[in-house]
Structures are given as structure tokens and as C-alpha cells.
């Protein structure tokens, strides 16, 4: 019974832990730069990543920096629709059954689709988790409960500005995974805090409940990833989106280029 309840997300963290390394989480935007290409990228990088985050793009993203904005606008311009995102997810999970997939985006897209319909669709596409950037605690309580009922992980975010009391409540309400935002920044900012400081704050979060998997994201690149190795997991998004942009500009194969970045990232934390 215990095993059946263990989510793929949890398993991925356990697996990384058994290899004495943090889990590697990647973020790419669905439909960047085409539906087909983004699925190819996802499939290829998942050979090295432990958990894949897939963004459903929104054209008014208030927490994303330039790189992810560029990817999102490109995907939208190329006609990506929310149902395409689900079909990418579904096709991915058909081949990579045990690879956890997390959808990430802004609440208006879910709101327009209808919360319940959105979650049904997630379930059908075998999506393992959800991150909703602009639906913070406690406003997310009812939606998070709905997710839990469907055994979809609702991933709470905490940041350097999160107060102690709030942190306690958020951790208590969280599912298997908590996402720690490394610094005051949009995605893809330059890491402006020392890794020591980040890890200090990280361990305070961890102390609340050791069984929660806490990942660190924002500002993580090939340069910075090694210094944060102690975390349960590390998320790389903008660095990957940037490589897709560069590959397109240079008319190179984005799949190969992005895959080698992810491979290198993985090697750095092994």
C-alpha cells in the first residue's frame, strides 16, 4: 500500500538521493518553438533530468524574466493552445511512463479552462504535478485540495520574503515537493545572493519537515549549480530556454544543444 501511494515525484527524489546527488529539474515551454520540437526536446532531456517541468505559456507573465518570456511568446506566436500542451504531456508520458512531469503556468489559463476540467485533463494526460505562479497560499487552498484528491501534486512556492509563520503554514499545506525561490528576482536573473546564504535559508525550510522535498530554482546555471548541490533538487529553466533561442538564431539543432546542456548540468551535480 505504502508503495502505491508513493508518487513518481517522490520516487524521483528518492532515486537521486540513493545516488547521493540532488534531483535535476528542467523547465521548458510547451510549443517552443513548435509543438513537435518541444516534445522532442522534452523526450531527449528527460534522459538526464529527473523531473521535467513543462510551461503552458501565457502572454502576460508577471514573474518571468526575458529568456522564458521569449520562449513563451515564441510558442504562442506559433499557435500553441492549451490542448496542445496536454497532448504534448500525454505523448511524453506514453513513452516516459515513470518520468514525473509537472505543468507550470499562470492561473488565468486554468481559470478560463475551468479548474475541474483542467485537472481532469491533467489526470488523463498523466501529469504528476502543477505549479501555478500567481496563485499563492492561502488563496490556493481550494485548488490545492482538488489537486490532492486527484493525486496531482500541487507544488507550493516559498521565497526569501516568506515570513516564518507563513512558511510553517505553507509547508504544512504542501504535498511532496516545495519550490524555494532562491532570491528576489524574476526567473533567469543573475544569482545575486551567495550560495551559502541560499543554503542557510534552504535548511531552515527543510527543518520544518524533513520529509518534504525542497528544490531551489531561479538563477541556476552551469556556473552556479554545483554550489547548491546540497539541495534535494535544483531547477534550471532560463538557461535552457536561452539555449533554444540561441540554437534557433544560429540555425542549429535545438534538441542536441539543449540535451548537451542538461547532460553537463547533470554531470556537475553527480
Amino acid at each position: 500500500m505504502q508503495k502505491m501511494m508513493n508518487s513518481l515525484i517522490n520516487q524521483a527524489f528518492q532515486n537521486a538521493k540513493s545516488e547521493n546527488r540532488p534531483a535535476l529539474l528542467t523547465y521548458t515551454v510547451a510549443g517552443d518553438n513548435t509543438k513537435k520540437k518541444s516534445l522532442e526536446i522534452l523526450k531527449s532531456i528527460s534522459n538526464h533530468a529527473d523531473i521535467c517541468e513543462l510551461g503552458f505559456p501565457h502572454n502576460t507573465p508577471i514573474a518571468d524574466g526575458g529568456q522564458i518570456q521569449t520562449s513563451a511568446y515564441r510558442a504562442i506566436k506559433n499557435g500553441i493552445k492549451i490542448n496542445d500542451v496536454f497532448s504534448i504531456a500525454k505523448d511524453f508520458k506514453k513513452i516516459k511512463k515513470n518520468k514525473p512531469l509537472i505543468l507550470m503556468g499562470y492561473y488565468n489559463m486554468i481559470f478560463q479552462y475551468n479548474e475541474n476540467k483542467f485537472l481532469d485533463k491533467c489526470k488523463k494526460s498523466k501529469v504528476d504535478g502543477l505549479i501555478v505562479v500567481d496563485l499563492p497560499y492561502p488563496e490556493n487552498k481550494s485548488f490545492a485540495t482538488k489537486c490532492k484528491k486527484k493525486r496531482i501534486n500541487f507544488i507550493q512556492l516559498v521565497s526569501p520574503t516568506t515570513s516564518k509563520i507563513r512558511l510553517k503554514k505553507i509547508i504544512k499545506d504542501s504535498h511532496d515537493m516545495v519550490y524555494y525561490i532562491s532570491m528576489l528576482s524574476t526567473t533567469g536573473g543573475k544569482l545575486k545572493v551567495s550560495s551559502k546564504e541560499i543554503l542557510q535559508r534552504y535548511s531552515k525550510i527543510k527543518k520544518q519537515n524533513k520529509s518534504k522535498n525542497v528544490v531551489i530554482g531561479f538563477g541556476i546555471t552551469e556556473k552556479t549549480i554545483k554550489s547548491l548541490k546540497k539541495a534535494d533538487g535544483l531547477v534550471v529553466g532560463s538557461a535552457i530556454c536561452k539555449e533554444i533561442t540561441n540554437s534557433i538564431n544560429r540555425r542549429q539543432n535545438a534538441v542536441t544543444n539543449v540535451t548537451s546542456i542538461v547532460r553537463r548540468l547533470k554531470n556537475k551535480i553527480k
Partner: protein
Amino acid sequence: MKLKKGIPLIDQHDQHGFWGGKFGGSFIPETLKKPVEDLTNKFKKLRKDKKFLKQRDFYFKNYIGAPTSFVKLNNLTNHLGGAQIWAKVVSEANGGAHKIYNATVHALICKAMGKKYIVGDTGAGYAGKMLSMAAKKFGLKCKIFMGAKDIKRQKPNCDAMRKNGAEIVPVYSGSQTLVDAVSECMRYWVSNCDNTHMCVGSTVGPNIFVKICGWSTAQISRELKLQLKKEFKKIPNKIKLINCVGGGSSAYGFWSEFIDYDKKKIELIGVEAGGPKKSKLHAAPLSRKTKIGILHGAASYVCQNKEGQINETESISAGLDYPGVSPMHCFLKDTKRARYTYATDEEALDAHQMVTKYENLNPSLEPSHAFAEAIKIAPKLSKDTIIIVNSCGDAKKDRDILKERLCKK
């Protein structure tokens, strides 16, 4: 859904910040939770603080120049026949528009919070210009986010901002207008919220910004109420208060004291930007049937597609060129307290021409939308009906657009 009497509309939201249970709220990234909470607590205290209120009133009077005048437009009234047309000439305020109220209050709050940097968004450039003025006045460093398209079309206001020592950050993403400027400003605040205060330029955004802005512009209707009593000895029985609505800050400020009145006595009419006559694009979420969506941290009627992507808008008036609208106006619409309609670019231009021809008044393209509605309905109304238009901005900033559009004709 029901309006309450005796409570300012800015305070008629629930504990989660929603008006009517569904408009507003605070859909913000986790990082902004704390700064928004700090600001909320601070504002709660400040608005009850006698010293702060005295300070506000002092600057409203001596810096902004309250009260702005309330005048009858005799020539326009005679020309149209029918209702009397009056104007509340808010454009007399220091800087030339109502945006100075919100900017001044935000600068005072910023100072009270001990922050040295202030950032803001702007469309027509008025919010930015006023914030740069207030920042200069109170010794704050100021950054203004503005769409690249708007920078081009509102040059006079940009010049003013630079003159006041503010840095203008051009925004090239999306449609390069107000919607993108607000997004970019919020992103900047996410990254710098520890030492920077953010001013949202209208009654939009996360709940607290709607409240602060509404609290600031409410000065307009406080003045008008006194002026009405002085002019007519009591509040007249048939009043129509017509105001343009982009984000809705001037309309809220113009109406706030009169919301409790029966709508048969005081009708509130909001005029949105209908865009070019032949275009499908517009910036009129309230009057042209849109669905509720989340934009810039609040739920409101929003110009968006079925998927929830925010639509591009189009209007000759940069100040109204915004796909969302204040949650308070959504509430006023659904409770049927206010009526919302729109005027096209062409109608606004015609109205501008007519008003400037007959009166010594130079309304910018934004209030020209309100005048368009006044001109439309006045001839059909009785002589004892008092139409009051909030002439909330001066057309100096529209110099280039007016030259181009009116010469072509």
C-alpha cells in the same frame, strides 16, 4: 451581489480582497506576498493617522491645487440644446491630470515606509509624469516603465518625466503598451521589493493598489459635492456623472461620494475606449462583453481570448488603452449602479473638436471619450438635467496625435 451603503466602495471587499465575491483579489507571486502585506498594514494605519491625513490635505491643497474648478459649459449647452453641460476641470491639477492624486499619496506612503526608490507604470504618460513630479518633490529616486509604442506617441509627457529626473524604462515586449508596462513594472518590483515601493497607476492590480488609488482620487468627488451644494444650494435631482474609463481611477474618484445616491437621481456613466470605428480591437472590457479573467494580480472583466491570453487593445487614447479594468467598476457594472458604454476614436476626436471650438477647455483624448457620450445624450434630455463631465486630463500631451489626425480630415 449588493452594494453596501455608508461604506466607501474601496472597503467593500471580502477578506480575500474580492468585491462582490469575484472581482479583485491578489493573484501575485509568492515573493510579493510580504511586500503587499506590509503595504496593506501600513496603509491601514496611515489612513487613520491624523498627521498623515493633514499632510495629504496640505499637499493636495498647496501642491496639487485643490479644489479644481467646476464650471458650466454655456456655449456647448446652448449649441446642443437640452441638458446643462458642466465640467469638473480636474486637468487644472498640478501636472494637468488626476493622476497627481495617486502619485502624491504613493510618494507619501513610500516616504513613510522608509523606502528611497519608487517605480511606476504609465500609458498616456500622465501617471509617469506625475509620479516623477511627486518623486522629485519628495526626494525619491524614480523609474517609470512605459511601452515603446506609448513613448513614441506621448512624447511631451516623456520629456517632462526626464526633466523631473526620472528614468524611463522602455518596454518592448508584447504590444509595447500599458499592459506590458504594468507587467514589466511588477517584474521589476518582484526583483527589488526590499528597497523599492511600487505605484500602480490606476485602480487596478492587487487589491491594495486598487484601494490606495481609489482613496487618493476620491478627492475629486469630495470637492464636487461641496461645489454642487454651493452652486445649487442642494444636490440637484437629475445628475449624470460622465467619466472615461481605462483602468478607472478618475471615474472612481469622480463617483465615490455619489455611489450611495439613487441611480435615478445621480446616474453614473462610464465611457470606455471603443477603438477605431472599423477595427475589431478595442479597450472596452465592460461595455463590449468580455469574460472575467486574471490580469496583473486581479480578477476583472478582461479583453482576452478563449484560452486566457490577454488580447491586444487599440485606442487613440493611450490612457484608456488597457485590456482590463478596475474590479470596483466590474462590481458597479454587475450591481447595475453604473452604466458603461464606449466611444470610438473618431467620436472622441469629434468631441474634442467640438468642445475646443465652443469652450475655453482643452480636454485630452481620454476625457474626450466622456464628452462624446455627453454630446450624444444631452440633446435628448430636459433642461433641468445636469450633466457633469470629468475633464480629467489636458490635451497638451496629445499635441502630435491631434495634429496628425485632425489635419488629415
